[in-house]
């Protein structure tokens, strides 16, 4: 009986400590400046919050980070610093900023209770930088004036890129994508959304090729298009005693005399190709 009572008291004490544990929250803002060469690379991987990149003077990458770290209790808060660190590092001309660890740790024991790091990144890079930036929740990915190759991703938010010259991939799951080229696209680019609209602005006269794979959306273009023959792609892979051949054919279109290929995929979004505002 005594033992039972003791264990009951311990359980109640634990429960009360869990119920009355004070959530912890800490804000931290800082700026870091890195010296880089003429065509540096920037990689940013955020989880909660915006990523904003603007073109600035050559020679430096400047990162401004506004972060809020929170957890259910002090112990979890301390744990979150190793589970969800904010990492900023430089390797030669490459600067990497990341929220969370490089490798996913799926069996997270002990659990980091209600741990969260919200971070707003504002980064100034040299105009010719190559950038690869992304976030997951509660954020927008914005890039302005970067003339190097741009790659951007977002899961539950939009992507807006202005002053674009070239991109490698732009991928969003539930947000819209807006790409505002201020020159003819210089390189092939994959543009994908599941549930967002895709808006592409091009200066006239436009010249590019399009490969289109659309589910339920509509397509509208301010430029006349011509059909373009596309070769189907076949990828072969073997696993677990079976061989799979994935065969894909996209519809091809050409604007003007053709040029860089934009591969556009959307399941439920509309696609709009329009003239740049400067052409109005």
């Amino acid at each position, binding site marked *: 009986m005594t033992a039972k009572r003791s264990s009951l008291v311990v359980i109640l004490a634990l429960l009360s400590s869990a119920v009355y544990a004070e959530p912890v929250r800490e804000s931290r803002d800082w700026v870091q400046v890195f010296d880089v060469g003429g065509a540096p690379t920037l990689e940013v991987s955020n989880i909660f919050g915006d990523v904003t990149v603007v073109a600035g003077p050559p020679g430096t990458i400047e990162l401004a980070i506004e972060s809020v770290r929170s957890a259910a209790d002090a112990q979890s808060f301390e744990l979150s610093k190793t589970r969800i660190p904010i990492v900023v590092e430089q390797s030669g001309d490459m600067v990497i900023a990341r929220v969370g660890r490089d490798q996913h740790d799926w069996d997270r024991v002990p659990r980091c209770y209600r741990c969260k790091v919200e971070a707003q990144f504002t980064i100034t890079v040299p105009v010719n930088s190559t950038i690869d930036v992304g976030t997951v929740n509660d954020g927008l990915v914005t890039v302005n004036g970067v003339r190097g190759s741009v790659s951007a991703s977002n899961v539950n938010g939009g992507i807006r890129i202005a002053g674009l010259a070239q991109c490698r991939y732009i991928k969003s799951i539930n947000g819209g994508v807006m790409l505002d080229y201020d020159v003819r696209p210089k390189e092939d680019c994959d543009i994908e959304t599941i549930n967002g609209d895709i808006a592409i602005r091009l200066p006239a006269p436009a010249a590019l090729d399009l490969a289109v794979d659309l589910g*339920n959306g509509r*397509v509208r273009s301010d*430029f006349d*298009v011509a059909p373009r023959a596309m070769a189907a792609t076949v990828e072969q892979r073997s696993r677990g*005693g079976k061989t799979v051949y994935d*065969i894909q*054919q996209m519809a091809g279109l050409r604007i003007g005399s053709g040029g860089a290929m934009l591969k556009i995929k959307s399941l439920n979004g509309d696609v709009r190709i329009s003239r740049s505002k400067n052409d109005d």
Partner: protein
Amino acid sequence: MINYRIIDRTAAALVVSLVLLTGWPQHACSQTAPINVALSEPGQPMTLRVQILSAKIEIIGERRDDVQIEISDASDGGRSIVTPSGTQRIGGGSYKLSATERNNTVDIGSDWRMSAIGLIVRVPSSASLDIATTNNSTIDVTGVTGEMQLSNVNGPISVEGAAASVIAESVNKTVEVSFASLADVSAVSLTSLNGNLLVGLPDRSSAQVQIDTSRGEIASDFEIEVQPSEPIVSRQERKGKVEVSIENMIIANINGGGPVIRLKTLNGDIQINRIAP
């Protein structure tokens, strides 16, 4: 006096020449290079399964040890783009499908939202088939001697040179199956709701046909001996309900009877054809 007939002919010839020179205005049509799928055990029995929502499917049986797939766009440019010059069809189609080989079974399936495609599959002639499609679709099989199960909801089914059991069903279109031989056939079932059923049998074939058409006509190149038969009553009990169905079929023998060929349609005609030797 002007001879209008000559002018008409000249104009027509000019139009035909222009069309031949330039081709009809069309979308950028696309076709993949043939894809050869190797079998795990070449030379052994294999099965081809195809499930595509909308496809014109042609299966060709021939002497080979692998499966060859050719895909083409069979859509009429289902999606359109609005441009300053008006709305244009986006030709060339877009599709995504996969072919998987495992233990001598090849599965071909597609993305559900895919526009119609043309699919030509060349298989070893002894292959077994399990083919299903639904809309804007056809199934054509030639030279395949294995068992086959074919389903096409809104399109026709055609089989030439069958030599084993065939189950073929189309809801709204014609099902036509001709046999090279009935020697290895255990049972055949051709059904349709609104389509005709045509079965072709080699001369001197022996078979038992079970025929059921509610509103169609029945014709046979063979003499048939109608057998006395009674309605087939089936009774099913489930969840407190009793379901009784009565099926009244004509049962008839051709040349004394043989493997059962069941032909059932609601609104279509039934025709049993003799294939000339």
